[in-house]
Every structure is written in C-alpha cells, then in structure tokens.
C-alpha cells in the first residue's frame, strides 16, 4: 500500500517539478527559504535549489510582488508566496494596477507571467488579520486568473498550467486544507478552466470552492441519509467563472445553494447567484440561496469562529429549508 500524501506535500511536489522543468522558475516570499514557509509548503527547497532560486524577501508585500512583476517582464517565471490574503492587500496596487493591467495598457506588448500563491480562510484561530476570505476581490479584476485548489489533485496539478499562463494567476490555498490527506495523485497538470462536479445529485446543487468543499461534501453525505441527493460543484476557477457547468447542473436540480466563506455582501456567492438567475431563472424551483460567513471580522475565540463560518450542519439546514415540506 502506498502512503497517504497531503495537500501541502502535493504543493511542494508541484514546486519541485516546476523548478526542475524550467530554469526560469524561482520562488520568493516571506520566510519561504530558511524557515520553509509559514505553512511549510517550501520546506527543503532552499537546500535543494539554493538561495538564487528560493529567495527570502523583506517584509514588504508591495516590494516583493513588484519585484516578481519585474522578473516576469524580464523573462523569468516567478512564483511569489504571500503569507495570507490579508497581507496581500499591501500589494493590491502591484497586483491590480500593474500585473493585471499591463497587457491592456501596453496594447499587448507586455504580459506578466506571474504566479502568486497565498493562504486564505479561517478556522485556525488566527483572528481577524489572518483569517479572511477575500478571493472575490481578486476575482473581480479583469486580467487575473484566480484559482482555488480544494483537492490534493488540484494542489498538485494547478501550479504548472498556472506558470504556463502568459498572464498573472493567483492561487488561493485555504489554510485548513494544508493538512488534508489522501492517496497519492498522479504528477499531471489539471485544467484551470472548469468547475467540477465532486458529487452528482438530482435534488439541489451545492456550489462551493476551497476550504468549504470538504464540509459541503460532508453535508451532502448527511443529506443523502435522508434521501436528499445533493450535487456538489467545486468551482476550482474563481475567475473566469465556469457558468456553463453551474447552469447545466441547476437546470437538472432546479435549486442552488452557494456555500462561500466570504462575507455575503458583494461576495462571489452574490455573483454566482446573479449569474444563475440570469441564465437559468425559468429552471429554478426555489430562490437561489447563499450560506456565507457572518459579517464580522473573523473572531479569535474558537466557538465564535465556528459560529461565524458555514458548517456542515448549517449547510444541511439551509438545504433542507430550500426543499420545503415537499421533500424530494
């Protein structure tokens, strides 16, 4: 029997593969070298690839993301790690005003083949400045491709196609997924265009991504015990959104519940529910519903943090409410 592998190990394997395959690839970020990365994704890479290709940076997101953009323009293929999405706000100017805009503003003369990885999400008692889910802000911006690997397969397979993309790509790694374990996955690239059905069903569609996928699947399992067959869709790609897969599912199930760890106001969940009603309104048998984080800065205390986030039990309750008294 082969041993289990983890989401973190899969990410590290993807980095090693990229560093071995393409001499233009290098990694930089805060504490990614000597310390091995705040989530230990890059542990051991400094020893293997040396300080030229595994570079610790000063604590300036604005500075080192800008340096990454410059390196990409200069012909390299940088992978820039930012500790959390909260800290990435310091680099918003570089990401939004430069990386995302340069191809357009140069009339197509300059593209920015940059990959930025960052942790996102709550659930580890790291309090409000390390726990937010702001993926939707990046998914708002034309010029960026935004990915959210939620499985070990995607953690292993998304990095290489992201590096091959001629434009900036942002990968969101949910902090609760790093320790997730599963059977080893093949060392192959995955597509970075489409959402995927992770569990087929006929009664309603649960749409989610990232750290909410495992608990949404758990909720679907719980619902199945009552004879409710929920289809679970993993968005995987937050920009551009794969409307076709979502709407195809909703046309079959007639009900959609979006589970999103972001705050509800102005969230990706809002965008998804708008698209569903634009494209599949007449197929809906109930209003599209959203289950999001409570609109508070994510609390530190464990019970408050849990109460602020969608949980399997609340997903089950929301799904049941959508089915009314008619059952399935």
């Amino acid at each position, binding site marked *: 029997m082969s041993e289990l592998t983890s989401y973190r190990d899969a990410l590290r394997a993807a980095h090693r593969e990229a560093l071995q395959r393409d001499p233009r690839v290098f990694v930089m970020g805060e504490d990614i070298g000597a310390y091995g990365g705040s989530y230990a994704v890059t542990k051991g890479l400094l020893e293997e690839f040396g300080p030229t290709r595994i570079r610790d940076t000063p604590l300036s997101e604005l500075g080192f993301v800008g340096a990454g953009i410059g390196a990409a323009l200069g012909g390299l293929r940088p992978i820039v790690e930012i500790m959390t999405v909260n800290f990435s706000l310091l680099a918003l100017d570089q990401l939004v005003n430069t990386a995302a805009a340069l191809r357009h503003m140069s009339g197509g003369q300059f593209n920015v083949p940059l990959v930025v990885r960052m942790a996102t999400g709550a659930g580890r008692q790291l309090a409000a400045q390390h726990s937010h889910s702001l993926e939707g802000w990046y998914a708002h911006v034309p010029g960026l491709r935004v990915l959210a690997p939620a499985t070990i397969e995607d953690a292993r397979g998304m990095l290489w196609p992201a590096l091959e993309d001629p434009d900036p790509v942002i990968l969101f790694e949910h902090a609760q997924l790093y320790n997730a374990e599963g059977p080893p996955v093949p060392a192959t690239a995955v597509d970075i265009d489409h959402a995927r059905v992770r569990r087929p069903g006929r009664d309603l569609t649960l749409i989610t991504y990232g750290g909410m996928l495992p608990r949404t699947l758990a909720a679907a399992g719980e619902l199945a015990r009552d004879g409710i067959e929920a289809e679970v869709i993993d968005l995987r790609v937050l920009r551009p959104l794969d409307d076709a897969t979502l709407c195809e599912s909703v046309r079959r199930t*007639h009900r959609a519940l979006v589970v999103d760890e972001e705050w*509800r106001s102005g969230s990706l969940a809002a965008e998804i529910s708008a698209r569903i009603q634009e494209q599949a*309104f*007449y*197929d*809906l*048998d*109930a*209003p599209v*519903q*959203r*289950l*999001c*984080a*409570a609109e508070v800065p994510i609390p530190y205390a464990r019970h408050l943090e849990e*109460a*602020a*986030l*969608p*949980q399997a*039990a*609340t997903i089950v*309750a*929301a799904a049941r*409410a*959508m*089915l*009314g*008294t*008619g*059952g399935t």
Partner: protein
Amino acid sequence: MIELPLPSLGADMEKGTLLEWRVHPGDAVAKGDIVAVVDTTKAALDVESWQSGTVHELLLEPGQTVPVGTPMLTLLDPGEVAPPARSRPEAAAPQAPPTPAGIPVATAPSPATVGGAAGRATRHPVSPAARRRAAELGIDPAGLHGTGPSGAVTLKDVEASVAPPAPAADRTAAIRAAVAAAMARSKREVPHYYLTDDVPLGRATQWLQRTNLDRPIKERLLPAALYVRAVACAAVNHPAMNGLLVAGEFRPSTTVNVGMAISLRGGGVVAPAIRAAESKSLVEVMQALSDLVGRARAGRLRRNELADPTITITNLGDNSVTAVHGVIYMPQVAMIGFGTVRERPWVVDGKLVAMPVITTTLAADHRVSDGHAGARFMAEVAARLQRPEEL
C-alpha cells in the same frame, strides 16, 4: 393556517370584486365548498375552497376589488389554535425557519415586500420552473397547494396536480376529474370553430388491404396510422394548427407531435404523443401507436408523453359514429376527428358508386386561426389520404 387567495377564474382574469361572503369566521369548510361570490369582468362566479378547515378571518370587504392572488380569507387546520387576528399582511409574512446563529437563510420575498404597503395585494409564490411547467400544461398554478419554501408552489406540486399519484382504485376517478377539469376549461376559454369534410377512402382502403396481405397479423397497418401521417404531413404546411397557445402567445411547433386520444377501460381518455410524426415512416407510426395504446391502457404512460402533443387526433371509427367534434386540449389549438368508414353512394366521374367514405372534422382555436386556414388544412389532409402510398 391556510390562506386562500383570490383564484384566477379564467385565463384573462386579473382582478375580481367580492360580491358576498358565503361563510363566516368559525364556519367549518370542506374542500370544494363555496366560500364567496366574486364578480369578474364577465360574470359573477362562485369561489371554492381548495382546502378544508375552519374559517378564521375574512380579509376582504364586499365591494372590494383586488388582483388575482390577493388573500381572501384564512382557514385554520383542524386542531390549529387561532393566532391573534391581523389586519395587515405583514403580520403573516412567513417566518424564516430557525437556523443556527450566523447563518443568513433568505426566504422568498414576503407579501409585504412584494405587494407594497398599499394593500394586501400579493402574489401567490410560484417558482419560475413551476410557473413555466404550469403554462406548458395549460393550468393555473395560483390555486395549487405549495410545498416549497414559504409555501411556494414547486415544479413537483404542479406535476402532482395534473397526474396525482393515486392508487389504482382511485385512478379512474382521478383521470375522470382531470379530463373534466381540462375539458371544462377548454370549453370555457377556447373559442372553437368546427369544420366537417367527407373524404373518400377507396384508394386508401384498397392500398391497406394489399399492403397487409404481405404482413404478419401483428404488423398489419391500421387506418389510424394513415390518419396520423396525413395529419402530421399536412400540419407541417399549416403551422397555425400545430403548436401551443401559452400566455396569449401562439408558439408554432417545429415538429408535429400527434396526440392520440385513447379511451381507457373504466372511463376517461388520455392523449399521449407520437413524437415527430411528420418524419416517421408509416410503419414507425403504427408501432408507436400500438405501443401507446398498450401502455395507456396499462397506466404506464410517461408524464412528458402527455404534455408533448402539439395537435391531437380523436378517432371514433370503431364506434359506428359518423363524426366526432372534438374539444381542444389546451394549450393545443386543434383537434382532428375521424368517424367510421362506411360505404356510401359516391359520384366518381359522373357515375354513382359504392365508396368507403369517412367524415373528418376539425375543431380549431379561433384565437389562432380562421375557418379559411382550417379549411385549407383539412383539404390537404383529404388530399394526402388519396395518396396512401406516399404516407
């Protein structure tokens, strides 16, 4: 607590004026009892309760004119304790089910947000999918019992209303009721016009006899297959006969799904479709016909087969009647009737001969077509029956 909204008593009814109450608070009401008399633009009509219960509160005053869907009165379920009386619909806004903390579960818009503050005007919640299905089936979803969130009528509620999952013992009664409802509505709403034609079937009869000589008994072609093909091929050239009239708009169909009225043992009639009959061969139509008759009588039709037809044929040729004037099955717009083939005196080339003749009829919806268009359609049906080898 059950809310009875003002039902639509006709496809074009948008509002009604309460003339009188027939019940008082505290009265026991059974499903089907008359609760009020309402004046529509056409006539004063009785409003029935679609639920049983005890009258709790009358929400309208006689003389008040309100849109369809406005709550008229509330009923208490048997054993239900009366909640405090209310005077504004806000008080009855559906409460969100209790959910764990921090979980915002949206509900359907409450009557207060939909109807505005001006009055009790509200829309009986019907899901978009249910509304579309109801339109396809030609039924009004407003009066259906909803089982969805906030009591919304769902797809399942609509489908259950047309094909109740009744046990075998009740099936005959359920079908009778469904036929009664559909036919009464059609006669109420559809301005039928009727055309009649006598069609000689000498060539068709001879052709069938010759063809069937070579065929095993089970594969013999019946005249009904010729009728289906003749109607289907003619309908391709007369789109005003073939399609659905939904929400005041006629949608011609690109295929001709011919519904075949099939009488059931024990009473009642269903009209499942032979799909795309215009592009099927005569043999395929015959097979489809045998299959449908068998399954219809065994009660094993699929629901979409019943909703699919775009035009319907009724054939009473086995019953020795001369002609049948059909009742259009809404939202279709035409029904073609075939009577019994009989030898009749017939003039051919100036000579009197004994000729097998059938009387065909057309019942068509005058909102979509006129007699002239219907006559041309029937002429083509007759002409095609003269060339059976091409069918």
